[in-house]
């Protein structure tokens, strides 16, 4: 399993971290490490979330009113700060998703054109 650490992983694409966090939280409220793991799992280990960037982003999203934070106990009885998507956050996620899809489609078309 040490190999897992050594396996090459990419940092989250610049500017998409917010969207990934919002998406992850749209499934269920989660604490910081949970978000990291979930992103890594779903991306099958392609994306690595830097804990520093994550906490900065969470603070930013919280202050923007897109997520709410609350101290709760985890299933293994630890106190953890759980983040939950707000209604404004859900709207924001939709906006960002639409925007992202539009971009990806455009880039994909461009790349196909080139080929």
């Amino acid at each position, binding site marked *: 399993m040490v190999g897992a650490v050594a396996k090459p992983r990419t940092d989250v694409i610049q500017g998409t971290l917010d969207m990934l966090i919002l998406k992850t939280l749209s499934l269920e409220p989660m604490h910081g490490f949970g978000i990291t793991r979930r992103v890594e799992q779903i991306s099958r280990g392609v994306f690595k979330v830097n804990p*520093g960037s994550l*906490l900065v982003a969470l603070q930013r999203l919280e202050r923007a009113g897109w997520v709410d934070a609350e101290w709760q106990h985890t299933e293994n009885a*630890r106190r953890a*700060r759980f983040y939950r998507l707000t209604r404004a956050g859900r709207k924001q996620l939709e906006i960002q998703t639409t925007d992202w899809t539009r971009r990806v489609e455009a880039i994909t078309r461009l790349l196909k054109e080139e080929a």
Partner: protein
Amino acid sequence: MPLWRQLTRGLRVLAHRSAADRELDDEVRHYLDEATESWISRGLSPDEARRAARMEIGNATLVRERVRASAWEHVVDGVCSDLRFGVRRLGNNWGFTTVSVLTLALGIGATTAIFSAVNPVLFEPLPYPHAERVTMIWDYGVDGSRIDVTFGTYRELSQRSRSFDAMAVMKLWQPVMTGAAEPERFDGQRVSADYFRTLGVPPAIGRDFDAADDRVKGPNVVMLDDGLWRRRFAGDAAIVGQAITLDGAKYTVIGVLPPTLENILAPSAEIWAPLQYDASLPPEGREWGHHLRMVARLRPGVRMADAAGELRAIARAPVPAFVRQPWASFRNGLIVNALQDDVTRAVRPSLLAVTGAVLLVLVIACVNVTNLLLARAAQCRGEFAMRAALGAGRGRMIRQLLAESLLLACVAGALGILLAHFGVRALVALSPAGLPRVTAIRVDAIVFAFGLAITTLIGLAVGLIPALHASRDDLRVGLQQSSRQTAGGHRLTRRILVVAEVALALVLLVSAGLLLRSLQRLFAVAPGFNAPHLLTMQVQTSGRRFVQAAAVHQFFDRALEAVRAVPGVESAGFTGQLPLSGDFEKYGVQFESSPNDDPREDHSALRYAVTPGYIESMGIPLVRGRRIDAHDTPDRPPVVLINESFARRKFPGGDPIGQRVHVGDTRRPWSAIVGVVGDVKQTSLALGQADAVYVPSAQAYFADNPMWLVVRARGDAAAMAPAIRNAIWSVDKDQPIVRMATMDALVAASAGERRFALIVFESFALVALALAAIGIYGLLSGSVHERTREIGVRSALGASRGDIVALVMRQGMALTALGASLGAIGAVAASRAIVTLLFGTSRLDPATYVTTSAVLVGVAAIACGVPAWRAARVDPSVTLRAE
């Protein structure tokens, strides 16, 4: 909403810093725990899992720092800690802090005080709606000077001109109110109907004047000033519609003006009545006298120049509907200028000069504090190098030093604004009589904002040079060198600053010196009379009893007898106008021997209607002939006296006695010149001699009223005042007596504006001198301190105490000499700014330059002497062992 959230979250963090830190710590720790657990669940041993988690998360402290730094409150927090640190550093160095704060407070206080005096006069718009549209209109006199307009001119302009919304003329009026309380004379104005509409100030209670009020034999109506209304009528709104008694006649109060009214054209006026001149313009009437001030409000969008052009066109094209008298033809056009320029004209030079002076003081104060900061930075070099070595960024260090200097400036600013508060009172007390808008001079929000702005500016300015210096230092050098050794860069900057300080101080000293010399010269000017022991006051008759001239003459004659009977009175007399009182009344004068042919020449002279005893009491010398005496009664041939320079000009080499003249009305019989008296300064000590004629008041074809009483006392003139007043009231207790003053006070007041400038300059120059001395002293003692070892070595090698003193003195005096030479050049340039305030003194007066430079060098020598003496007492054995 998000912005609100940002703000509240940030503030919560600032308020509960430690709780917020703990939360963040907890979250990071929890993250680490979870990560560890996750590794354990993947099969690692607890130790390995912990290590893997640590690797994943990186430096936990750094993570926390990143999260903290991303929030806005972090910046605030940083500034707060800079300030806290600054407070500690300043607190650790009381001497430095006290000197710096006091210096800056002096600079900020003086600047703020001067600003508060200058701002309402020179910069702030006048307190009227669209004040920029309020203009003054003047006629041209024969000599091209501006003179008051006639009612005829006003009437024509107000009907023909299209450039103005409203126009008004006014003259001063001093009614006496009688009735329940004791008689009181008010300052007031007779105004045409549109006066307050021209200013744009409607009454607070009641109604404004209208055209129906302002006609010949119109109703007796008055409007009251808010102050008068509160003082005499208890602020009772019911006064409107009631009658009061003024000069023996009933006047109905129709309105009260708002307390905000600042009547700049007649600041002391408290009561207004309509002008009520005759619109049919009888040629011999007062309607054609040049004695009305004219004010007009431009139509929106009309420029001053356009209005002036229109008036010029009207002036050049008379129409039959508007007859003009030859002396009021205004064919030369009219002068139109902004009211603001008009009222500030006289005081502008001294106010600008004083502003310049205070800015110099401020710069010197800043230079001084910069120098002190540099000196301190030099002592703290090791500390800064250490901080840099530990990773403090350059920006961070600059920020910290600026925070410190801003802190210094803020403390000084608070003290300075307090100082300004008192300074403003002193300034108002000192202010020359001609200063407009004195009531508007105070420390208000604008002044406060100004003080705050210069404080901030100064905080940045004085901090910047030391901050840049400190942050530029080479680390290694800073760490290796002990603070006692020298640092070339600092010393050069500090020397330049000291030279600048000395130069600026000399500029102020020279200016103050020039003003002092001017005032000495001015007071050395003989006014033409003997001022000490003279008491003066204005006496007026009022009421219906005095409609007849004979009654007026009788009252003044009896009053004079009563005054002469008062013990301690040497002599007394009345005059229609008093020298240096501000009066300026001229009449046309025509000599039988030289007809007034040349229309370009001014044929008018000051006219004094005097009683016997006036010339003697004033001490005006009789040059030839006789004075006016009791025999010059109305039934005797009319006589006149003329002054010496007038006689010399009109009768060069001849004898004026027996020649005949007309004073005023040319249809009356000729008056014979019976005497020639000395020249007297009427308007100001500084102005040249005007022509003057003296006529016996008894022979004048109308009774001059009010008259000035001049009393020569045997002892203290001021102490005679109550006795004189009672003597006059013993004749008639209803007659007001005003403007009581000794002649000495009038002489002093006539130079008020120069004296104001002098006092301000003198105090600023002293402050500048003291600051320059502190600067030199600070530099040299720092330098002696830094060079203790070198001085020790020198004396160990055989340098005498004299040598050491010379070494230090040479350094200080070289800087002084350089500063003084630059300062002299600066003073030559700066003296242009005060040239209008000088009198009988060249702005390049060598004696002033030499004297003030000598004073400066003398003070600098003392400032150098103390550190030099200290250097000479350095014990080589002690200093060398200390290394």
